[in-house]
């Protein structure tokens, strides 16, 4: 399991508390290049907080976050620069409502990465095409369905070729019939070699794309391992209970 090369992301002893309530109680996590790490666990287990801490959107209380060996959690470094190397997609899309789909996607390449407008928009069009929204480049987010908005948000996060893609329960706010398209897109990204950390409740999908699955509960990683092993032969009692709950009482761990 240990890769020969250094991991893209390395989290060491990450701790985070809100007003004295511990949300993350010492997280250690390595993500190798081209790997998909899936975070599962009950609501409030710290999955979203972990992703936001990795993207430096939350101050951490203790620990280290290393991106390609650089400690980006050092408060003396410029967090804006560190974030340039990561792309994040949120549960509720968070598209900019005053910009068209294309402007949303082209914003970061143009403004943060210094690409000129023409190149940024050409790239934006390619990406919208890739996520299946070729005809929607001029549409404003409010005129798009949830699934379409989420695919624009994914294109926006991909627009500057981030080293690491962070997906925070990106299908949780979608109508059931729209979930498939978005997951299919994530599957394609994984197959194309993106390095991804994602939090999800879609167990079938997690099993299918994950290289490593981490089960979080109460702010700690209770158990982690290859998808096949964790889903079919969980070692910890808490993992077994959680999997039994989410896959329906009475059924054995999911068959795939």
């Amino acid at each position, binding site marked *: 399991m240990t890769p020969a090369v250094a991991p893209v992301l390395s989290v060491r002893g990450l701790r985070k508390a809100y007003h004295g309530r511990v949300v993350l109680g010492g997280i250690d996590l390595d993500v190798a290049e081209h790997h998909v790490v899936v975070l599962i666990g009950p609501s409030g287990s710290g999955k979203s907080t972990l992703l936001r801490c990795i993207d430096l959107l939350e101050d951490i209380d203790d620990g280290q976050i290393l991106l390609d060996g650089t400690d980006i959690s050092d408060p003396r470094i410029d967090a804006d620069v560190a*974030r340039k190397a990561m792309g994040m997609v949120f549960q509720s899309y968070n598209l900019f*409502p005053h910009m068209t789909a294309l402007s949303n996607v082209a914003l970061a390449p143009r403004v943060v990465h210094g690409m000129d407008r023409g190149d940024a928009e050409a790239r934006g069009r390619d990406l919208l095409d890739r996520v299946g929204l070729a005809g929607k480049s001029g549409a404003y987010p409010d005129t798009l369905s949830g699934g379409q908005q989420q695919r624009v948000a994914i294109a926006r996060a991909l627009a500057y070729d981030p080293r690491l893609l962070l997906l925070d329960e990106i299908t949780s706010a979608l109508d059931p019939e729209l979930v498939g398209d978005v997951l299919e897109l994530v599957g394609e990204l994984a197959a194309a070699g993106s390095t991804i950390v994602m939090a999800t409740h879609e167990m079938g999908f997690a099993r299918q794309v994950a290289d490593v699955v981490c089960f979080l509960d109460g702010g700690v990683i209770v158990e982690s391992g290859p998808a096949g092993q964790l889903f079919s032969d969980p070692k910890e009692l808490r993992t077994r209970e959680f999997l039994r709950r989410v896959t329906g009482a009475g059924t054995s761990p999911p068959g795939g």
Partner: protein
Amino acid sequence: MTPPVTAPLDRQAYRRAKARRSTLVALTSTLIFAAVMFVVVSSAPGWPRVRESFFNLRIGWESLPALLDGLWLNIRVLAVASVLVLIIGLVLALLRSLRGPVWFPVRALTIGYVDFFRGLPLLICLYLVGFGLPGLRLTGMPTSPVVLGTVALVLVYSAFVAEVIRAGIESVHPSQLMAARSLGLNHRRTMRLVVLPQAIRRVTPALLNDFVALQKDCGLISVLGAVDAVRAAQIQSATTYNFTPYVVAGLLFVALAVPSARVADWAARRAAARQGML
């Protein structure tokens, strides 16, 4: 077989007939009401005196050129003041939204400014700036009542506009900031490209409301002796012993405000339509 086919047609015909009848009733009742009002008002014992004092067409017409001259001054003051108010209000709002301990004195100063000038009666501000400052006899101090009046208007109105814009900035959801930061945008770019465009759009109706208020308060520079529409009306009224010039000047200000209100409606509708909210 027939009911499913004819029922919707009947319903539409019935609704059309009902709508026609409603229009007719509204029209008739308005006409009758207007006629009654006309008879009542014009047969009231005091009406000829009221008409002579407030609605004297000849005096109104003769005072019109002087009033329009004065109004032109008001419009120029309004143009300069509204641009300055918007810029200063925006700067104040942005200064107040700065984070970090270094900026504490700046934040405290803007809060003090806003509290002071929002509470200060405009008339007192006009007297202090318009009469007080020239009284200091400092070199380089402007003495024109128009310039000083504009300064007083800008001081007071920028405090109001700063608060409106700040409310707009704070109404933008934190998730928008998070999305902008996650893309690597720094605080300045996040403000300029993500927060402010949404904030300004959201507070445009409130800003245009302040614009209309400023429009009529421009008439207050007359207290400093500037010959604007209000002052011109005062002069005309004093020479004719008649109040019609005031009525005409008042109507001119109203006529100026109506397009602003329509522009406000139009701007709000356009922003909503563009984002597909209609």
